[in-house]
């Protein structure tokens, strides 16, 4: 088994007086895909956003408990959130390229994080990131066209290239395929398969089949609790918890 990359213990999240997550304890292994599934509002996206401290952006949101990345506590005022986020890329449900060229979309991260010194280095990073995201072939002759001119699936791969460009360890994906057609979805899933050899990936998905296809481990959330977690193969053929069974067989939602 791979090393634990992210470890959470008794994580609680409150939005004002409403508790959104209850004592979530979960280990996420390095260079594996962990899928988070569960009905809408179950807390899976909230949990995902704890890992890169995105919940900090919501005033009424309060996170407590312990989350470590590479054994270092990240729920602390002393943590440099910008540097943490440079280690953790994120891809969202709707492709959200910046209103800039394809090149600038990918170049943006390395530039603001000061990763590169020369123009040649920057070009190298942009090219290799687009290549890793499986997009280079399709866009190499139009790097200065707007990112928004690409198709939905290409835009999503552009966002993945943008995330990869800052050389993160972890990539968080929040329903990355829900706005894509089946072919674009298959391309992203193929990409996830390749990316997991270099990155730790956590993916929130509403598609059980997608979780079964892309992940090695799966966690099932319900009403803010992590009900069951385990090997994906086991969860989808023989889950232990009745709620998991009910959800994945379409008996309650």
């Amino acid at each position, binding site marked *: 088994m791979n090393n634990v990359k992210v470890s959470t213990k008794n994580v609680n999240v409150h939005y004002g007086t409403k508790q959104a997550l209850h004592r979530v304890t979960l280990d996420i292994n390095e260079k594996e895909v962990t899928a988070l599934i569960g009905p809408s509002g179950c807390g899976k996206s909230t949990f995902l956003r704890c890992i890169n401290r995105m919940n900090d952006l919501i005033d009424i949101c309060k996170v407590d408990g312990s989350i470590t990345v590479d054994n270092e506590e990240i729920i602390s005022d002393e943590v440099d959130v910008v540097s943490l986020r440079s280690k953790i890329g994120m891809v969202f449900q709707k492709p959200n390229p910046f209103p800039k060229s394809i090149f600038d979309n990918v170049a943006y991260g390395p530039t603001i994080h000061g990763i590169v010194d020369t123009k040649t280095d920057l070009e190298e990073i942009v090219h290799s990131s687009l290549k890793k995201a499986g997009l280079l072939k399709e866009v190499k002759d139009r790097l200065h066209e707007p990112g928004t001119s690409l198709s939905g699936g290409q835009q999503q791969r552009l966002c993945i290239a943008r995330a990869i460009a800052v050389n993160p360890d972890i990539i968080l994906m929040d329903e990355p395929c829900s706005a894509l057609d089946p072919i674009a979805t298959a391309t992203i899933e193929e990409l996830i398969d390749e990316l997991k050899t270099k990155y730790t990936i956590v993916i929130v998905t509403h598609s059980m089949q997608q979780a*079964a296809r892309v992940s090695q481990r799966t966690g099932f959330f319900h009403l803010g609790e992590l009900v069951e977690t385990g090997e994906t193969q086991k969860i989808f053929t023989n889950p232990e918890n009745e709620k998991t*069974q009910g959800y994945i*067989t*379409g008996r*309650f*939602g």
Partner: protein
Amino acid sequence: MEQDKHIVKSYDDEMKEINNNILDIGSLVENQLKRALSALKNQDTALAEKVTEDDNIIDEKFRELDQNLVHILGKRQPMATDLRTIFSAIKMNKDLERLGDHATNIAKRTAMIELVLPEKPVRDILRMGEHVQIMIGKVIQSFVNFSAEEAKVVWKMDEEIDDEYLGILRQLLTYMMEDPKRISACTNLLYMVKDLERAGDYVQNIAEDIYYAVSGEPLYNEGPDREWEAIKPLKNKK
């Protein structure tokens, strides 16, 4: 099979239809064996020929269920208990069809035999056949009740069938050695007893499928091959 209902009602209807299909084929196969044994008992050629023809009905049901199973797999992409049930149903369907073939073989052979058969081995074969028939009934019942425990009980019963098989095998060999004129009749009986032995194995496979569908755990046959262990000594006799 008592489980919560699916949100999509037609999924439940489809699963129910699969269940009913399995029960239909199960009872057809059980009846096929019952009638084949009755034909043997009474050396009733007409009945044996009718049983042989009726194998088509089982084959037709097999194809129908096979189609239903492919459709539900593609359409519903089942998970967990549904996935296991459908996966097991695919195997059970094939095993029931093969079980039907073995019952039909007994009828075919009965229809062909024009000889007087030795009474004792025929009696023993009929008894063994009844035991297989009981196993079929019980295994189908364990599917209806979706019970891993009941399936395991049936699974165990195959050991007795194997013992009966080896007993009759020895008996037939002795008959043939004593009087070579009996070889023709006894050879026919040998085939029949082998058909029943294989039928028992198929029931055992079905029990394994049900056990897996219910529990999610496999049920394997461990230990030495009992038939091989029993006949191996014969090989060394000069």
